[in-house]
């Protein structure tokens, strides 16, 4: 049995479903290196033509926002309704603008 030090590092997998779309996060997997991670991602996440392109990145290389900061980071946008087109009521004649 291998020890924790021998566990393959974790990678996050992003798949582009078809040309023209964004790569989207679809899960993670363990692989010895990035090259193998791409190979394994193909086997694990695209067995039914779910993708045309794969990105992998080491999970430890991702910097994420803290869920505890969610309110501080994202609430300020809540009261800025003037950033949305629906905030502006225009005369019917030009309302398709």
């Amino acid at each position, binding site marked *: *049995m*291998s*020890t*924790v030090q*021998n*566990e*393959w590092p*974790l990678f996050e997998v992003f798949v582009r479903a078809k040309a023209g779309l964004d790569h989207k996060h*679809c*899960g*993670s*997997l*363990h692989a*010895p*290196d990035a090259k*193998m991670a791409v190979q394994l991602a193909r*086997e*694990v*996440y695209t*067995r*039914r033509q779910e993708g045309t392109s794969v990105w992998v990145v080491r999970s430890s290389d991702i910097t*994420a926002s*803290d*869920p505890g900061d969610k309110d501080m980071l994202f609430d300020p946008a809540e009261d800025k309704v003037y950033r949305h087109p629906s905030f502006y009521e225009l005369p019917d004649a030009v309302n398709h603008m």
Partner: protein
Amino acid sequence: MYTQAMDTAPKEERKAVRSAEEALLEARFEARIDDGGFIEAKDWMPQHYRKTLVRQISQHAHSEFVGMLPEGNWTTRAPTLKRKAILLAKIQDEAGHGLYLYAAAETLGTSRDQLLDALHTGKAKYSSIFNYPTLSWADIGVIGWLVDGAAIMNQVPLTRCSYAPYARAMVRICREESFHQRQGFDALMVMMKDGTEAQRDMVQEAVNRWWWPSLMMFGPPDGESVHGAQSARWGIKRISNDDLRQKFVDATVEQAKVLGVSVPDPLLQWNEVRGHHDFGPIDWDEFWRVVGGHGPCNQERLAARVKAWDDGAWVRDAALEHARKQATKEQAA
């Protein structure tokens, strides 16, 4: 496949004493769940919720891995190239499903090695159904039809589980799983319609063996389910064991008619008043015997799993060493 209502671990007492801060966090957590909200990996969650999920998700993952073994038994003996290709695709799916689930369990702060170690040392459970042998080719069809069918019934509600990484894994699994049940039914259909008398008997004999273990996959009756109430409260389990089992019986009885096989239960009959089928008592002693490690194949399955892991150790180590060497070379260059 294959979750069984896995609430077979002993009930743990929850800590009664909590700090004021913890009580506040827990109140917020509960409110979020009551609102139908999702919990993500980095969100605060009660220890007991985390523990319950690690147990359930990892047992589910183990079941996918061990589930490959009874089917692997038939890859070299599938009757046609078509059936062999289908079986290989299904087995590869089980591996994939296990990997989605291990990854989901790891988001809760446990390592892959810890999870596998628990399986290999016999500390963790997997679905009791895989401790039964696959004696004939019809067993492979019946596993698809009944075992995967039961698993799908169990799994669909889990796509709405409150723990989002698990729910997302389940969405992916359910999408792929439907083929598993359909290919099984199709294989049986061919034997029943175009087969010989002996082949039809083989299908019936397989149904007779797998029927009751399939009903057991939904777990103990609601009254005896140790984690049921808490898991329902937390949105981990959405439908009770008995309700799912009833749903499965009602759906399957009709499919058996189409197939032309009988269900090995003399007490099975339609109940007009309930609008459901009544069915005979399940042998829970057998269930607990198999869960407790004394089914027909428990030792064989675990031994095969441990052997596969140990035999693969040099490959995993070599791949890691190769990666290290490449990285050192790149640094030097």
